[in-house]
């Protein structure tokens, strides 16, 4: 029998998939599955080291929209253009599919996709006498945060990511910057942290967080904020659309029936603060069982699998954000109050034109170059230092600019 070693990230959907693979192995008795489930950072380290050195340890890997284009270009991933017809590649949401392709060659299939949006507490908003429109501006958000903030009772107006990391605070702040008209690099790859747009972004971000945010926000990531929101400690939370199902899950959320959703805010410049991300399954070229692996990834991202989940766990729990057909399914739309907002958010994101001004890179909340992980994290650390009160806005931006210039020069983008 063939053994597939599958590296996955330890989030709820992936863990759920592990529980449902009997269905797959029954169909494919000659394939055995071995799971490596890791925290995101560890997963990325392990998988990158392996794939870059052709270690050949994995047959299926879970990677994001950031890695796929880079690795695809390197020839490290097996092309997936030959998936069977019943897979219905065309059903995949176009922005997602675009993010997972290089020159029209698909290198990974999406397991779930997400954008970001605003989640808020209807009850608190009502009590505070504010309304949050479905398409809010940052001013709306500020006003609402101020109104709902009640730290003496353990309720904070807004929870945002503060923990340093290119996939953590940098991702969020980049989308915010996009909506403020800022960009990472100009067309000559010159870092732009010295621009007024960035200064406005960070100033507002810090204002929000220091005035209305929870304590210790500089170490809050997705998960910390999720916990806070589920405990009812946040008035608003702007984060991944997948959180929609968690905050409305009565088993884990104390505020399940009080959550409202809105699109990512804008500042009237035509871009909204929302990202695009898909955890996807890909097959390293170094895999020794690419065919079996293909069968697996096709199964795991198929409509059939979606139905399987729906059958076993309910429609609210199916992996969202990958297929058009899902958002046409009435059962799903009924079970998932956040579904419409999710698909709208996804469709509002454009990896090829993330911000107001032109940029030389693709990616909404990241820059799809290999150096971005390092730079993005280092910049994120500066922001989190500013959030922790260690630096002023200007110092943080100056430091970000300096290190970005240095890295980009070293990497040869800036001649």
């Amino acid at each position, binding site marked *: 029998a063939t053994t597939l070693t599958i590296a996955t990230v*330890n989030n*709820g959907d992936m*863990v759920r998939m592990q529980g449902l693979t009997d269905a797959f192995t029954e169909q494919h008795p000659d394939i055995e599955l071995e799971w490596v*489930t*890791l925290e995101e950072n560890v997963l990325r380290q392990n998988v990158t080291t392996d794939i870059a*050195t052709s270690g050949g340890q994995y047959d299926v890997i879970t990677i994001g929209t950031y890695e796929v284009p880079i690795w695809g270009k390197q020839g490290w991933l097996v092309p997936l253009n030959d998936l069977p017809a019943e897979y219905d590649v065309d059903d995949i949401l176009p922005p997602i599919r675009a993010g997972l392709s290089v020159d029209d060659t698909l290198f990974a299939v999406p397991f779930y996709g997400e954008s970001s949006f605003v989640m808020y507490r209807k009850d608190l908003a009502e009590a505070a006498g504010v309304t949050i429109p479905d398409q809010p501006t940052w001013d709306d958000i500020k006003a609402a945060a101020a109104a709902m903030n009640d730290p003496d009772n353990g309720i904070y107006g807004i929870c945002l990511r503060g923990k340093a990391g290119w996939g953590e605070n940098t991702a969020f702040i980049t989308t915010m910057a996009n909506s403020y008209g800022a960009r990472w690099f100009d067309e000559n790859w010159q870092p732009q942290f010295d621009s007024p747009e960035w200064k406005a972004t960070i100033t507002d971000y810090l204002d929000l967080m220091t005035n209305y945010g929870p304590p210790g926000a500089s170490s809050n990531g997705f998960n910390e904020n999720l*916990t806070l929101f589920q405990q009812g400690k946040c008035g608003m939370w702007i984060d991944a659309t997948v959180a929609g199902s968690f905050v409305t899950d009565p088993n884990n959320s*104390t505020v399940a029936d009080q959550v409202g959703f809105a699109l990512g805010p804008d500042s009237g410049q035509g871009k909204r603060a929302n990202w695009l991300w898909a955890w996807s399954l890909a097959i390293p070229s170094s895999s020794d069982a690419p065919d079996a692996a293909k069968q697996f990834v096709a199964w795991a991202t198929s409509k059939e699998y979606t139905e399987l989940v729906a059958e076993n766990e309910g429609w609210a729990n199916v992996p969202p954000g990958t297929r058009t057909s899902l958002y046409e399914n009435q059962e799903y739309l009924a079970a998932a109050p956040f579904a419409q907002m999710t698909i709208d958010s996804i469709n509002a994101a454009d990896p090829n034109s993330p911000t107001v001004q032109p940029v030389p890179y693709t990616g909404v909340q990241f820059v799809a170059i290999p150096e971005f992980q390092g730079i993005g994290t280092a910049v994120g650390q500066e922001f989190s230092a500013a959030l922790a009160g260690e630096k002023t806005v200007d110092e943080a931006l100056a430091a970000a600019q300096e290190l970005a210039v240095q890295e980009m020069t070293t990497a040869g983008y800036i001649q």
Partner: protein
Amino acid sequence: MSRAVTPARKTINTVLAWTVALILFFPILWTVLTSFKPEPVAVASPPVFLNFDWTLKNYYDVERQRDYFDYFLNSVIISLGSTVLGLVLAVPAAWSMAFVPGRRTKDLLMWMLSTKMMPAVGVLVPIYLIFRTLGLLDSRIGLTVVLMLINLPIIVWMLYTYFREIPGEILEAARMDGATLSSEIIYVLTPMALPGIASTFLLNVILAWNEAFWTINLTVTDAAPLTKFIAGFSSPQGLFYAKLSAASTMAIAPILVLGWFSQRQLVRGLTFGAVK
């Protein structure tokens, strides 16, 4: 000083010592307690100590997600294997250094220790490439060897300090009695140094068990020990304190229990020559 300690004095000491001990132990206790709480209770404010609905659900969830036993087995194999292998190499080496010391013996020892100063992250890529070439990635053997090499200097040093306490005359006596070198080591030295060897063994099993860089980076599934197990629980989505606690408890319990049962040997031997 065997003067009677007054009961008052003893009481004060006892209270103080217990306070310190409980403070130091509290994080572990809290983790274990939390592992039995339902997730919402785990983050309840104010914190709940004992009066909650004790549940094994977290353990069940954790076990359902991962085959704990596979990881556990790897941890056992790798930590015991590397320690035994290390001892096999180190006993003769320490014999040489302790009983036939040369002018350079001290330097040699210090050099061995200095090999531990190389930051592991800096050499990960070279080692990974070597392992790939040798086909040792994700193999218990490879990991065992690496952990053995990492701990070898410590093993040698510990054994060296114990051996030096053994009077050379006893080995000479064995030699006069017709023992060959190997009989001398097997029948005389090793049994005599047994407390020291036991303590070395324990310390290194603990160090190997808890090693979290090479074990995470050089394994995938086949050889993955409990450190890798934990790496999958550090922050999943949603409330996770209770599950994290359950996973943590499962990862540390075996070595903690081993440590408790053998703490006497460990404490007795843990001197590194600090006590003459």
